[in-house]
């Protein structure tokens, strides 16, 4: 029911499931507190003034990818950072207000983070599907 309406009232959910509103509210709170489930309000990056979003992937040499990933994660406007199994072990989603910011960020990541051997920048254009159902909430 929350998937249909993330703001559905506990009493409404309870009525439909034959449970008390209090019980539903407690369950939602408990799942949230345990980090199992969170009702999120995810908004498009453009609402926040960003105009461009890029996936930037890094090839790393002579340094642990985890250290590179942590250094990258500390930068402003980096929305997410993952360690992956691919030839680019560090992958991030980076938001920009304009093209100049993107160019400067790519240059800065390449020259300013030790161990970065190669940078692959992919500017996202169109979104064909986005289903917020599962996420690494513990990160």
């Amino acid at each position, binding site marked *: 029911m*929350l998937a249909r309406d993330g703001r559905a009232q506990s009493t409404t959910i309870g009525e439909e499931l034959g449970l008390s509103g209090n019980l539903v509210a407690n369950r939602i709170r408990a799942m949230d507190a345990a980090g199992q489930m969170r009702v999120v309000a995810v908004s498009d990056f453009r609402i926040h003034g960003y105009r461009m979003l890029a996936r930037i992937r890094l090839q790393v040499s002579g340094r642990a990818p985890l250290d590179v990933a942590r250094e990258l994660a500390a930068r402003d406007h980096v929305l997410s950072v993952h360690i992956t*199994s691919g030839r680019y072990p560090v992958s991030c989603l980076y938001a920009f207000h304009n093209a100049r910011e993107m160019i400067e960020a790519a240059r800065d990541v390449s020259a300013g983070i030790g161990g970065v051997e190669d940078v692959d920048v*992919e500017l996202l254009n169109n979104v064909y599907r986005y289903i917020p159902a599962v996420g690494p909430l513990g990160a």
Partner: protein
Amino acid sequence: MSITTPEYPATDPLDRDIATMLAEDARLSFRKIAADLGVTEGTVRGRVKRLQAAGLLKLAPIVDIARGRDPGASGQHLMFVTIKCVSGKLEQVRDSLLAMSRVSALYDANAALRLIAVFVLSSLEEAAEATNAVLSLDGIREAETELVLSTIKYNAAVGPIATLEDLATPPVVSDD
């Protein structure tokens, strides 16, 4: 290539402030948001409706990937697949990917020269099956799969979420 990006709906700082407050607590009352931002509750309600209708704001439960989507599940895996398509085949490949239920997000990148798909998978066997399914598609020149091994940073509140379909059907919702 016939893919064009529709005009993006105008938003303003009030939309941003509402989205930011909801990002902190998606179930925060509209009354509280209105009081904090100095507008009426009706304005907040109208703005949220409009943003949702435009696909710019989604309110939904997210299950922690370490625990899985279903009760008792041991966890799920994220896999990114980057695909370079044979010239003129991007739309065909895109539609095939959209038919796959495990694809939770799909984007095109670099002037529609690449597709990036995000798969949510229950096991490594499913990852192998998904990889096979992608590589079997007609129109693929090159495909690269990356399993997410760990997540260092994750912003659940901001992302590329407004789909072409959302943008192509502008909402008709008044402010109040």
